């Protein structure tokens, strides 16, 4: 049987995008060669200064005596106050105009990094606490102090434009976006993708340069010292260095060692010495207090929920929906099929992943399940044909009907998350039919397109349907409604979804709508995530601990329970037990409690 795959036409609003021309670099003052005084310090004198005076005299630009005295007084004032931070004073007025309010913890980070850490630090705040803002303030501070003229900012490519606009709009810094291999040498402040930077010929050019400051965003990508990423960051000549990551350590203390060695080689000694002194096993430190004291010299971590860092409330709405009769038929059929095949698959040593995917897809939409069933039909033939035919007859499911009502009643921008591209297309098509302007967001988009879509959503569209939880940095604080059309099995993905809008800069309470269908696996997932783990109220650090303790077995444990347990009471008992085990492990995890 040949079933054509459905495609949905989607309208996309057109928006032009203005990329500014790269700004000219600041003129560097011409100085004499350095002269050494008593073998202690060097001094050099401006050659430009006297040229400027002579030009002014020749042009007759004599000012009044009163103005000269005023200027003298002003210069005196402007050079004082080194103990104070220049950045908030310099930008205070601008921030008021653009609506930026620096949080106390961000000002503390600025002060600590500049005055205590000599501009080399790991900024390890939890997700959504404004690490980019902190790094921007530090960069601006050093620029104002005349200590940074050249800076290199390496980020995942999806965040390059966000860095560009944040530095321009919030810090009045005009960076370049790296576009050609010439930019490495000529740009004063350059933003580039880490993946581009590590490739030849870029890598060689970068390593031949001297930068006053290096900033690496999502710096957990540098945690392995055998990777090109780490070796590049280690090789770059830099005076100051900021590494930004919410997860400086995930599985092994060596990750932390590697990051700190990038900043202050020798602070923790060689790895052998570090291991002997501080590592009991890869997840368990020893001499914790001493280690923590050393970490405090280079790492700052702010957590949510502590004094001074208050985020708006999360208002969780669980919408339990009855499946339509034909959907129920499909769900029960798929469940029966998956459970039977899962046992067979495990006993024959096959790959159960497509079955798990199918089971999850059917909870999302018949449309999503349809594609996987169509693929399975090629290998399993008539066994899946009835399910495929049934899936093809279902147009609008109960969840979609509920969703349409929900977005109408909200009357505000909404981000809808789904795990599946097929569901994404299905949702966008029907929502457009219902009169909403939608944009789609997914992991396959280029960084430029992601930013373009983000702006479209901000300025034009009503709804963004996303398959990517956006784990890396893009901000959507202009929206406060999140709909989980289906639930990911990994709680971190769920947290990352919510974290796109529930972060610093969000001024309103955030509404989280979980759409789950009654008497399906989704109901059990929601029970586990919400009622047992309490993850909607949990801070990211605790979640890290839980997932770290689970050590990658979370999803497989969950699949095992969900696909092999037929009795509902037994299923609940197993989920309770899984939750208890993880919570207790997580709370005791020595690796996470270290930071």
């Amino acid at each position, binding site marked *: 049987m040949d079933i054509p795959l459905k495609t949905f036409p989607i309208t996309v609003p057109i928006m032009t995008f203005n990329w500014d021309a790269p700004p000219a670099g600041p003129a560097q003052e011409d100085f004499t060669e350095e002269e050494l*005084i008593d073998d202690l310090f060097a*001094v050099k004198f401006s050659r430009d200064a006297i040229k400027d005076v002579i030009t002014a*005299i020749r042009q007759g630009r004599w*000012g009044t005596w009163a103005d000269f005295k005023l*200027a003298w007084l002003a210069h005196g004032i402007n050079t004082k106050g080194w103990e104070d931070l220049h950045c908030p*004073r*310099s930008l205070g007025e601008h921030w008021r105009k653009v609506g930026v309010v620096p949080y106390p913890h961000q000002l503390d980070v600025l002060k600590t990094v500049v005055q205590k850490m000599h501009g080399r630090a790991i900024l390890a705040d939890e997700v959504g606490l404004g690490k980019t803002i902190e790094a921007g303030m530090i960069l601006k501070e050093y620029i104002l102090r005349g*200590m940074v003229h050249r800076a290199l900012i390496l980020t995942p490519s999806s965040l390059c434009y966000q860095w560009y606009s944040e530095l321009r709009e919030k810090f009045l810094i005009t960076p370049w976006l790296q576009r050609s291999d010439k930019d490495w040498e000529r740009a004063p402040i350059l933003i580039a993708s880490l993946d581009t930077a590590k490739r030849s010929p870029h890598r060689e050019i970068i390593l031949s340069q001297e930068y006053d400051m290096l900033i690496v965003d999502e710096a957990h990508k540098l945690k392995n010292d055998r990777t090109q990423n780490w070796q590049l960051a280690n090789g770059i000549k830099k005076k100051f260095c900021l590494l930004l990551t919410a997860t400086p350590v995930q599985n092994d203390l060596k990750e932390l060692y590697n990051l700190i060695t990038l900043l202050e080689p*020798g602070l923790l000694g060689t790895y052998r010495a570090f291991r002997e002194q501080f590592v009991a096993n890869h997840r368990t430190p020893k001499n914790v207090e001493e280690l923590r004291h050393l970490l405090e010299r280079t790492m700052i971590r702010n957590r949510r929920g502590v004094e001074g860092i208050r985020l708006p409330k999360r208002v969780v709405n669980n919408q339990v929906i009855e499946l339509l009769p034909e959907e129920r038929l499909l769900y029960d059929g798929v469940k029966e099929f998956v459970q039977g095949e899962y046992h067979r698959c495990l006993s024959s040593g096959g790959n159960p992943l497509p079955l798990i995917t199918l089971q999850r897809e059917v909870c999302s939409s018949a449309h999503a399940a349809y594609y996987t069933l169509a693929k399975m039909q090629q290998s399993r033939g008539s066994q899946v044909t009835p399910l495929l035919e049934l899936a093809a007859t279902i147009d609008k499911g109960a969840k979609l009907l509920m969703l349409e009502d929900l977005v109408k009643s909200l009357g505000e921008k909404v981000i809808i998350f789904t795990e599946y591209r097929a569901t994404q297309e299905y949702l966008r098509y029907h929502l457009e039919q219902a009169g909403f302007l939608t944009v789609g967001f997914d992991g396959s988009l280029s960084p430029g397109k992601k930013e373009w879509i983000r702006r479209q959503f901000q300025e034009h569209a009503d709804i963004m349907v996303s398959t990517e939880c956006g784990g890396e940095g893009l901000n959507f604080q202009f929206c406060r409604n999140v709909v989980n059309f289906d639930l990911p099995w990994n709680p971190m993905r769920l947290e990352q979804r919510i974290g796109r809008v529930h972060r610093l800069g969000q001024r309103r309470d955030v509404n989280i709508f979980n759409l789950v269908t009654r008497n399906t696996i989704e109901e059990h997932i929601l029970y586990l995530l919400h009622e047992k783990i309490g993850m909607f109220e949990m801070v990211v650090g605790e979640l890290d601990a839980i997932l770290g303790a689970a050590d990658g077995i979370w999803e497989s444990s969950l699949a095992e329970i969900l696909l092999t347990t037929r009795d509902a009471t037994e299923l609940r008992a197993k989920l309770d037990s899984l939750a208890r085990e993880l919570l207790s492990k997580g709370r005791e995890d020595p690796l996470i409690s270290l930071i």
Partner: protein
Amino acid sequence: MDAPIEDFLQRYLACRGLSWQGREKALEVELSAELAEALAWQGPARVLWTWDLDTALSNPGALLFAPKSQSLERLMGTINGFITCGHIPSSADGLFRPHFLWLFHLCYQARESWEQILPVVVDLVDGSIAGILEGDLDGRPGAPQPREKRRLSFRRAYWRGCVFVKQYLTERAKPWAQRAREDLKRRLSDLEAYFAELGDEEKKQTRLEEESLRFSPRVLVSLRGGALIYWKHPPNALAACEFPAQPLPIGEARAGAPGPSHAAAQEPLAHNPPSPAGGGE
């Protein structure tokens, strides 16, 4: 810091003939259209000028004037004060002698950075250094009569001033430089031990050199302005300028700044200009 800023703002407003009223940590100022434009101010003409960050943050309509603030920089942009010409009135007999007052800007850099304005007066007849100027200078505009002829070019006078700055730093900046050196030495020793244990001799040398190059203490000297001043006698207003307070690591108590050495400050020059670039007319 607050008092000098308040004093500066009041002097500025008086100079421009603008009216203001004192408020707590602020002045309420009636802006002219030109000044509003220069400050990129689009609000009402009556505006609060403050030097206190908290007052600025709690008054959305206030302008903040603090070191390095945007408003101060913009206000400085309205002052034509880079060079001037004036004289110090005197009823005594004799000729007025031309001097040049250089407002040197010294930027001290190590792992910390801080700045200082150093006003140095050079005699434009015999090339001697009159000294460092401190306090208010009660001058009058314009060149008086009778006066001596200038014998030193401005360029040469600048480099004379630079030599004096070098001398000043040699005598005053040692404690700062020593502390910066010690800090650097500690850092280099950590690095050396690390790379020695790794057995990576080549890398060790490179990193030590890099670290040394970047964080060795240095002073960058440039200018913020200058004034051609005529004095009849060696000016009485000259005094030695104290070496400014230096940054200390957090938690350390501040030591007293080194005391001024009047004699040293007025010692005649013994050096030639510091580089060939300084010698030309």
